[in-house]
């Protein structure tokens, strides 16, 4: 089949986007369930295990239940912004998924050869950072428009936190960019193949990996950095006033953000779809890719079950006085080593 034909290409793209969207949504449902079951396990409880086999259908039951609730818009709220905020949150969350390669270029019988990614462009990494930085508005505007003190505090906290940790997040990735010399995520993954996993960037960028992981957890507003929604002080923070489908949008956006952040960690540091046997069976790459993502999602849940919440001044001090200098140090070290290696080779 002629994959370069414009119309066939469009149809393939639409199919690919649909598959990716459904996969991510199923992954969100699985993560929600896994979070409840694993948290319960950590705390010595059973967790939801009644709906379906072992509680498999619990997320769908929750979804239907939440959707059936009354859609409240608080009196005296800024109605337009109140409606806009959850849309910004979910759109920016989903948009970031477009650039990730789910697997290597595969060949299917009767269909031909095509790469398992939706979009390819030069600045994929910057695109992800840009979309993430726009995502702040969803939370900030939600907090402001609710006309609620708790929501406003949550929105302010989250914008302050996301601005602070975005810097460390972006700077921690520069080491990887220096190593690979490209911003194209697909190429970065391809460069990590071979040598039986010894070319994964995590081995050359351990500091960058740790910094990225910390900044990413803060960026997704998860424990121990979940100050914007701190249930005990802020009554769920920025989404206090949201109910029904609007709440679901925020809820989904948070989990999709977790997944995209895990995808970025996987592709940049853990070799993406690389693993044993991928050269012979390219479809195995998809399995490895999702296995690595599931590892990071488990890490998120594990942290939630283990760590207490930061205080706000601790959060700010940690971000500006430790993470940021450490990220800059990582860049300087990486650049120096690369320069010296280049110099020695001459």
């Amino acid at each position, binding site marked *: 089949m002629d994959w370069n034909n414009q119309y066939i290409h469009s149809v393939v793209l639409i199919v690919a986007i649909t598959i990716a969207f459904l996969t991510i949504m199923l992954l969100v449902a699985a993560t929600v369930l896994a979070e409840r079951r694993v948290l319960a396990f950590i705390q010595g409880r059973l967790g939801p295990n009644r709906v379906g086999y072992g509680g498999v259908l619990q997320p769908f039951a929750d979804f239907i239940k939440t959707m059936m609730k009354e859609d409240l818009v608080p009196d005296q709220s*800024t109605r337009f912004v109140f409606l806009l905020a959850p849309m910004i949150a979910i759109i920016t969350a989903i948009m970031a998924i477009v650039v990730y390669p789910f697997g290597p270029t595969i060949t299917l019988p009767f269909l031909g050869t095509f790469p398992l990614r939706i979009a390819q462009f030069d*600045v994929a990494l910057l695109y992800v950072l*840009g*979309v*993430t*930085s*726009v995502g*702040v508005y969803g939370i900030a505007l939600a907090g402001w428009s609710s006309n609620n003190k708790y929501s406003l505090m949550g929105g302010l906290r989250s914008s*302050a936190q996301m601005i602070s940790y*975005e810097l460390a997040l972006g700077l921690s990735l520069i080491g990887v960019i220096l190593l690979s010399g490209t911003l194209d995520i697909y190429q970065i993954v391809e460069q990590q193949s071979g040598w039986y996993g010894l070319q994964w960037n995590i081995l050359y960028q351990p500091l960058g990996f740790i910094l990225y992981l910390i900044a990413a957890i803060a960026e997704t507003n998860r424990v121990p950095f979940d100050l914007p929604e701190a249930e005990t002080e802020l009554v769920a923070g920025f989404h206090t006033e949201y109910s029904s489908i609007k709440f679901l949008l925020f809820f989904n956006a948070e989990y999709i953000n977790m997944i995209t952040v895990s995808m970025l960690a996987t592709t940049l540091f853990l070799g993406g779809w690389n693993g044993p046997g991928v050269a012979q069976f390219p479809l195995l790459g998809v399995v490895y890719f999702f296995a690595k993502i599931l590892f990071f999602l488990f890490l998120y849940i594990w942290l939630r079950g283990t760590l207490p919440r930061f205080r706000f001044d601790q959060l700010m001090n940690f971000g500006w006085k430790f993470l940021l200098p450490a990220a800059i140090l990582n860049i300087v070290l990486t650049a120096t080593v690369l320069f010296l290696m280049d110099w020695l080779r001459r």
Partner: protein
Amino acid sequence: MTTLLFIIFAGLAIGSAIAMVSQSNPLYSAISLIGVFISLASIYVTLAAPFIAAVQVIVYAGAIMVLVIFVIMLLNVEHSAPRRRRLKFLLPMSIGMAGILLAETAFILYSVQTAENRLPGNISNVGLTHSIGEGLFTSYLLPFEVTSILLLMAIVGAMSLARRTTILSSTARVVPGAQVLAMDIVNPRAVGDMRPVETETTHEAAHLLGVDFQSDRNQED
């Protein structure tokens, strides 16, 4: 296809710009400005300059506008009635400026384009990461560094303007008895330092805070 995209995003940009100027609510203006930035970024993508587009979104839409919205949210600007116009000379001046801008546009459209038609085309690499990086670190190194020093100076200036010498107002009072204070109340330079400072007597606390305890009690009597 490119023309269609250009028309869509240029229309969005102009519409958002008009909305930004005409809104009376500052937050709506800020949101419209974000719309302008994102539409402009989309136009950069169609002009084969993806790096500039990404940086436009990250820096302007992502960082600067978040700060603007942050300030608007913190100040909680009320929806106020239109105030009396001050600075009346601004109106004729703005008309004159608009005239100059139109004249410049007309000049570019009529003389520059007819002189030599050089479209960048698809082979252009002006907006790609590699060429921008190479330009910044070779031929434009000095302007680049000077700009960064300028920004640093601006940050230091803003810090020195914003940092207050004292947090307590002149009417602040001290509660009688021993007390525990946070370090950042006692010393304004220790911002965010929550370590406790314990005092034994009221006088000690008043001295630490720089509040005149004696005169305070006289007022109570």
